[in-house]
């Protein structure tokens, strides 16, 4: 197991390095940063001065390695727009996003997994139909529309929940539901499918033949095997939530990292965008790594990988 973890860790580091290089170079393909920094009315001389000031005239590999060295020390440079260190900007915005992402994925897992299990225990029952309806609706509703409907219902009509901001836990209820509901359908259908497959397998019959109770059969013998693909999916969705909750953050005016990404891209704030891409990719890498470790713990056959 330890050997497996170290191997995966090494692999994850290599992926992280590659991703950092690609994200750094990609941004240089999207136009001359010096020209856009200088503004529309700048002369060639101004652009050249800015190019020299920010070091854009150096070879790209040199720029990359100095950026990476700084990044490893937690120094992502200064935001062009906010005139603040990118690191402190990120730290502040990530708090909101991480809290929202954790709430969202927890909400999704806590609703989707039990529903998927119930649906698999009684396929084609009322519970199964209800779960199918929920997941089809969840897949079809755009987040921004669902978010607005919730605001109309709970903030404007009923006045139970605040519509925007991050001041109290109440502010996080609706964003959590919207974000979690987006991830729920896939998790639920995968849980249901996995459980159905596992429940018809021979070792479940063996467990019943031993005299195991239905609860024991479901949770000890079936769920552990059925949940493995769900873990991988949830990891990817978690990464997605931390990086891609731009829509939800905008609707509920939560100033998180997703919102920051949108602001920085539209303002050509190069250091911030680079740092965000790096951080978002790291989330994916960390969560996939954790999912691999969790799956190896669940299924001994994976430990040799």
């Amino acid at each position: 197991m330890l050997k497996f973890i170290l191997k995966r860790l090494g692999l994850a580091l290599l992926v992280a390095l590659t991703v950092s290089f690609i994200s750094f170079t990609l941004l240089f393909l999207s136009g001359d940063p010096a020209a856009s920094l200088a503004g529309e009315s700048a002369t060639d001389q101004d652009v050249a001065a800015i190019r020299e000031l920010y070091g854009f005239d150096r070879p790209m590999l040199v720029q990359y390695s100095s950026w990476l060295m700084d990044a490893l020390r937690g120094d992502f440079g200064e935001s062009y727009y906010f005139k603040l260190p990118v690191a402190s900007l990120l730290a502040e915005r990530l708090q909101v996003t991480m809290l929202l992402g954790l709430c969202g994925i927890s909400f999704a897992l806590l609703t989707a997994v039990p529903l998927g299990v119930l649906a698999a225990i009684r396929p084609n029952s009322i519970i199964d139909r209800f779960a199918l309806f929920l997941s089809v609706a969840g897949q079809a509703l755009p987040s921004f529309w669902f978010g607005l409907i919730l605001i109309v219902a709970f903030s404007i009509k009923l006045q139970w929940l605040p519509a925007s901001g991050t001041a109290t836990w109440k502010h996080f209820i609706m964003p959590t539901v919207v974000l979690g509901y987006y991830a729920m359908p896939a998790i639920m259908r995968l849980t249901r499918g996995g459980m159905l497959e596992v429940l018809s397998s021979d070792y479940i019959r063996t467990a019943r033949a031993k005299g195991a109770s239905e609860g024991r059969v479901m949770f000890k013998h079936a769920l552990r095997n059925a949940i493995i693909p769900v873990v991988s999916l949830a990891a990817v969705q978690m990464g997605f939530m931390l990086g891609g909750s731009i829509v939800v953050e905008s609707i509920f005016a939560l100033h998180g990292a997703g919102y920051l990404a949108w602001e920085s891209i539209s303002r050509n704030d190069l250091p911030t965008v680079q740092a965000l891409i790096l951080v978002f990719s790291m989330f994916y890498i960390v969560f996939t790594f954790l999912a691999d470790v969790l799956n190896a713990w669940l299924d001994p056959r994976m430990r040799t990988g």
Partner: protein
Amino acid sequence: MTDKPILTVENLTIDIPTGTGTLHAVRGIGFDLKPGETLGIVGESGSGKSLTSLALMGLLGRSIKTRATTMEFDGVDLLSASARAMRKLRGARMAMIFQEPMTSLNPAYTIGDQLMEAMTLHGNASKADARKRAIDLLQKVGITSAESRMTQYPHQLSGGLRQRVMIAMALMCGPDLIIADEPTTALDVTIQAQILRLLVDLQKEFGMAMILITHDLGVVARVADKVAVMYAGELVETGPTQAIFDAPSHPYTRGLLRCIPLPGKTERGTELGTIPGIVPSLVGDVSGCAFRTRCAHATPACRDAIPVHTAPGVRHSFRCISPTGFAEADDTPQSVEASV
């Protein structure tokens, strides 16, 4: 060996609802089994032998309808018993060994965990006792270095080893009845004989009753005290093993016997037989003799209800219109009439 049967089945019927009608998978079969006795249930795929064993264990799906005039295990009515009562029997007093050792063990738990679970979940053994028993039984089923096998996972074991583990698991609680559903079919030929011998030895040692389900008459001849031959959900012939092999009376039983070489009976160089045709569909109304479409002696009368005859002396009975069975020489399969 007492005379009181531990298992009595009378008139067992299993119906499976399907999209096109009810599948009458098992129709009115019956047998009994005394402690220490071995019953061989023989038949081809789809004859209902596995369904019968799953019905005894109470492991059939909710949608499948099981009826019987009697289905009793040691005084417990298996049909009316509560789910809880059945759970107490399963694994503890009646255990089952399945056909597929490769997939019958849970890939996520160690051999030891799964063996011990069979004992601890019945609530009367400590973990230490269960562990000791598991190691003992692993040694008994011929697994070397049993202690280290306990911490291994199923995927680290070969098919033969896994079937030995399955046998050990079935024995954990010292059951009175063991049902082995084609326990050797999925194994290499060289391993098959070992596993069979092991089963028989353990059965003798523990004095269990055993139902051995197989399509292999050779296996039955070696280990069973009595035989039940199933065809298309019916019991076509039943009796003591010796009587069945000496005087097979139903054309189907004789057909099966012609398919295998028998020491002392089959001459070297003669071709082994086959039974032409396929098993009929059992969906919808089924009446008359199910074997008539493949039988050399079929007459229009076979479409009516078929009486059960009992051979004189021994408890040997068969289901055919001919009260004596037909002369063996007439069994030539070519004469099957398409009109029947």
